[in-house]
């Protein structure tokens, strides 16, 4: 019975300037707090003494408006010491889990339910990172687009991934602090972030490795998607340089402490576990999007802009030499191999609906087949062939 009680989560977001992206992040925090079904979410915004004139006042007002806790440190403490406040607060206030997050993120409504359920699925889990378009070496392969960070898109993607992966996990060499959930029991045993990492970077890696040495699992939850812009506040703070994505001095501390870590990362990358998961994720996203919003098919040699289409775009080479169809949606790309029967028949069988549009931009064997298929199925084909596309 006690397993069914609502879990308490402290979600702490660290802010340093970031007027351009923080409001969207905090609105998504308020939304997920209000829509979590199995978890009570307390949100805490930690303002690391943002120096931008007037911003801290604005931020406090925004937090008040959204009903989020707000705390401004007396001076700039850096990431580890600020996040330690969140860990300490969660321990003192009796939360079951604490989630630390960057502010250049947009969270889905199912974030708390999913991550907490994953953490609850195995008491050996010491940390769970959400999956994302930008999560270091674990990222989902997606071309960044403005639509990707829309709350509806983030919700939908996260829902689709939850449908595909449920509460499954991927064990990884280290978590990523952009959105990392830790059970407070693990925090109690492993301890706090080490302030030796100064203003931040690598402190969560250090924490995860420490947790791993104590027997905890370090995991990524592929069943939840968080949009992460990346480098948002850290670059503004001068913490990382434009051409770099880490702090070298802090990496040297990791190398000194854990000489085996880089080897573990190499071994992980050599395994195909992540690639298989990525392929499954993208195929599911494209399939669900096509089923929900429809799709278009085009025979063209040239890459074309997405246009006003909301759905998935499938494209093939006009001469059909390559027996594959490229699929694209919201920056996600996949390549499906055709199995002999006609393209439209194959798509109809897989997606359960015919295409909304068929456009041909050049002539070729495949264009002719498409013409025959559309005529048979009574689908309108838009012939835009003018002259050969390829030079």
């Amino acid at each position, binding site marked *: 019975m006690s397993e069914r009680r609502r879990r308490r989560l402290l979600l702490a977001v660290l802010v340093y300037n970031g007027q351009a992206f923080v409001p969207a992040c905090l609105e998504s925090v308020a939304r997920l707090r209000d829509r979590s079904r199995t978890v009570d979410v307390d949100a805490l915004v930690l303002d690391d003494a943002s*120096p931008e004139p007037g911003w801290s006042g604005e931020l406090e007002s925004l937090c008040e408006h959204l009903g989020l806790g707000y*705390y401004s440190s007396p001076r700039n403490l850096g990431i580890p010491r600020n996040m330690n*406040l969140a860990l300490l607060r969660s321990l003192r206030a009796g939360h079951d889990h604490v989630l630390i997050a960057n502010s250049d993120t947009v969270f889905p409504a199912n974030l708390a339910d999913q991550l907490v359920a994953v953490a609850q699925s195995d008491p050996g889990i010491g940390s769970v990172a959400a999956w994302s378009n930008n999560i270091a070496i674990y990222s989902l392969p997606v071309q960044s687009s403005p639509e990707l960070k829309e709350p509806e898109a983030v919700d939908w993607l996260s829902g689709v991934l939850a449908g595909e992966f449920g509460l499954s996990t991927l064990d990884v060499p280290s978590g990523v602090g952009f959105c990392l959930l830790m059970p407070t029991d693990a925090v109690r045993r492993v301890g706090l972030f080490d302030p*030796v990492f100064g*203003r931040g970077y690598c402190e969560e890696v250090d924490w995860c490795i420490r947790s791993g040495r104590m027997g905890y699992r370090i995991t990524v939850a592929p069943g939840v998607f968080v949009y992460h812009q990346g480098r948002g506040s850290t670059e503004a703070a001068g913490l990382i340089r434009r051409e770099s994505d880490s702090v070298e001095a802090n990496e*040297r501390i990791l190398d000194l402490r854990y000489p085996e870590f880089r080897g573990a990362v190499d071994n992980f990358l050599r395994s195909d576990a992540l690639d298989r998961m990525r392929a499954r994720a993208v195929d599911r996203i494209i399939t669900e999007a096509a089923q929900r919003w429809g799709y278009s098919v085009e025979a063209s040699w040239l890459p074309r802009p997405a246009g006003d289409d909301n759905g998935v775009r499938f494209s093939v080479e006009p001469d059909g030499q390559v027996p594959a169809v490229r699929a694209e949606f919201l920056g996600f790309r996949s390549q499906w191999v055709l199995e002999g029967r006609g393209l439209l028949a194959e798509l109809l069988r897989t997606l359960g609906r015919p295409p909304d549009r068929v456009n041909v931009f050049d002539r070729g064997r495949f264009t002719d087949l498409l013409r025959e298929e559309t005529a048979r199925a009574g689908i309108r084909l838009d012939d835009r062939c003018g002259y050969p596309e390829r030079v």
Partner: protein
Amino acid sequence: MTMERALVNSAVDMQGALVQQAEEPGLAKVPAVDPAAIGANGVRAKPPSEEGHGRKVTELRLELDRLSLEQSLADFEVANARVVDLTQRLVDAAEEIRSLRTELDNLRRAQGTLEAELSRTRSTKAYRFAEKVWELRRALNV
């Protein structure tokens, strides 16, 4: 609250100074807090809020001030101990370097002496004669 806030400020300042000594050099400097955002009593300026919400906000701020102060003092102790530990390890390492350098100098000197002796030996008539005998034996295959 003002007193506690002042304590947090001062503890954080001390800790910051010490931790910076212990940390790797080359980290970006902590940007200064905008003075305009801090009132005369050291409390960050904030817009007025409603009564009930205000009390909750104050409680949260007090709690986090307290946690920050406690943790700053703990970090201060660790940073201090780390400085002592690192200094001791630096002294040990410097001593080891000095000892290794002395050993290296001695070995270099010994090598020089041996090389000079070898050179002297090679220049003797007996050595040259013996070398010719060996060449002859090698040529005759005996």
